[in-house]
């Protein structure tokens, strides 16, 4: 008889014959902000949290900081290598990123995106510095995602794949920590049709556990069926979908019940969510989005209130991104929601 993965995951949370506290332990707060003056520096801050020891990284994933759609699925690749994700510009490497690359000392650099996103000159410079550079780039975001999904050479098929919208990117970002930690590839699709590259990747991977992220507006029922979807994690909006993904991560993916992270919920803050995926994944911390207007948002507020019994001082309340991305008022509201 095979062990039940799902049962084990759930059991991890609830204990056996042990009551959970009735409310959050006094003192739990969202007070650990990982940020820098811009998206590049925020990614570096997250990288330092993941790899605190200088020179101890072996691998590094680099994507364009302004075209994160190319790197949308990079969280999976980074997870395969236990690597951080750093941002660069198209033509040159920002100083803060360059310094972090030096600090990490990684031998292997993985570029996600074409030369129109991360220039050939950057690739050449890293090669000249003695690094092994691998670029994964397709004709479009769907093909790039497919190439990333097939990057694992272990011979072991992924246990699960995510299928998410390639145009409404928040859902894929919310799943980033799970993709990193559990080595679940993220494939992208159009809402109304399954791109050929995505279909071929699904066939190539052979994984039958296919979780579709987002509502039918993002991934239609027809595409769900065509892709062989086995489960849909979706809410009324990106905040609620992220909450569903968080619940699933805790229930079945061994994520920490006692910790949670906030990240800005607008498209402009997508870069912070992607950069957060490695360190959040490494500690099993689910991501929640704040509202579009900079507030905590009703869905996230409701999620936190419903789970407040789980949050203890042993856990961590993280914020990824600076004050413009996640205003302090939203952070304070989150802390209040779990009391």
């Amino acid at each position: 008889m095979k062990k039940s993965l799902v049962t084990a995951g759930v059991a991890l949370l609830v204990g056996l014959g042990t009551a959970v506290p009735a409310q959050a332990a006094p003192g739990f707060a969202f007070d650990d902000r990982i940020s820098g003056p811009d998206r590049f520096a925020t990614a570096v801050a997250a990288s330092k949290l993941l790899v605190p020891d200088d020179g101890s990284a072996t691998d590094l994933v680099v994507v364009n900081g302004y075209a994160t759609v190319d790197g949308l699925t990079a969280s999976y690749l980074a997870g395969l290598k236990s690597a951080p994700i750093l941002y660069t510009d198209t033509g040159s490497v920002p100083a803060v990123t360059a310094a972090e690359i030096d600090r990490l000392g990684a031998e292997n650099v993985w570029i996600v995106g074409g030369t129109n996103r991360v220039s050939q000159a950057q690739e050449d410079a890293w090669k000249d510095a003695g690094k092994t550079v691998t670029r994964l780039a397709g004709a479009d975001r769907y093909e790039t995602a497919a190439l990333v999904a097939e990057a694992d050479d272990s011979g072991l098929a992924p246990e699960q794949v995510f299928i998410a919208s390639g145009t409404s990117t928040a859902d894929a970002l919310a799943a980033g920590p799970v993709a990193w930690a559990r080595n679940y590839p993220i494939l992208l699709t159009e809402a109304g049709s399954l791109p050929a590259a995505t279909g071929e990747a699904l066939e190539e991977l052979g994984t039958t556990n296919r979780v579709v992220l987002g509502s039918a507006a993002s991934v239609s029922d027809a595409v769900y069926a065509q892709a062989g979807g086995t489960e849909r994690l979706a809410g009324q909006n990106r905040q609620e979908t992220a909450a569903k993904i968080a619940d699933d991560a805790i229930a079945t993916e061994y994520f920490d019940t006692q910790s949670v992270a906030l990240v800005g919920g607008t498209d402009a803050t997508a870069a912070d969510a992607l950069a957060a995926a490695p360190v959040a994944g490494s500690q099993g911390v689910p991501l929640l989005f704040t509202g579009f207007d900079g507030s905590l948002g009703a869905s996230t507020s409701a999620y936190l209130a419903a789970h407040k019994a789980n949050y203890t001082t042993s856990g961590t309340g993280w914020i990824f991104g600076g004050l413009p991305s996640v205003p302090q008022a939203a952070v304070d509201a989150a802390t209040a929601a779990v009391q």
Partner: protein
Amino acid sequence: MFKKSLLVDMINRSSETPADRRNFLRGMGLLSAGTVGAGLVGTAAVQSASAATTAPSEASVLNFALNLEYLEAEFYCYAAYGHGLADALATGTGTQGGVTGGHRVPFKSKAMRYYAEEIANDEIAHVKFLRGALGSSAVSRPAINLQDSFTAAAVAAGVIDQGQTFDPFSSEAFFLLGAYLFEDVGVTAYKGAAPLISTPAYLEAAAGILAVEAYHSGIVRTLLYENDLSEPTNLISDARDSLDGTTRDKDQGITVGSGGRANLVPTDSDGIAFSRSPQEVLNIVYLTPGSGVTQGGFYPAGLNGEIATS
């Protein structure tokens, strides 16, 4: 199903203290007029009727095992998932402590991650099982150190030099060495505790846990051998052997002779696994040989429960 009177009698004879006795009874609903059926999570009660008067009770032995399982569960939970046990799984009698150190291993191999996750899930299950069996008599998780302890052990073993740091979470190789430090201890501890358990249901469960720990040990030893880590592994084995405080050799590395022949199953001449007494186990986990030691090493504030002094 046991009769209520039998259960009460067994508990009266075996609990660690009068307070334990009350906790057991309360946990089982036997202090009220309730029925017996829902007690003890489907297991028999604890007893030590045949134990000598100086021998620890079965509850004490199970709590001793629970202390060790907390350590293993925290180690593997951090290694596999990047976080420790939920606080709800760490409550109980005695002083609840925190966990120092621990983070996810930067896995490069999916297979290695699978090994770590499978063992983590088993160790978490052991914690839950023992907590369920002990009910409200279960000890809380004592303070656990997964940081300085490993460095001290590695220095003592000669794996690293004084001033260097051994972080078992820093790589797959170091993770295997860290796991090795625990697994053989677990096997010998459960086997050594067997004579202290007389209730058939608990003896069977303990045998089952011992078997699982032995599976884990076999996995870890094999992986260490396959990854050419016999030299540091054998040093750790020697260190454990010195630490346990006995003159008898109860530990074996993963190779024998000078040719690198594998020795993946540590046994005596009869092909039987070694036993360690609780005191010998304490010597190892406290990283301090000798008697009368109450804390140190992986348990900076000592174990919780009756069996806590070497």
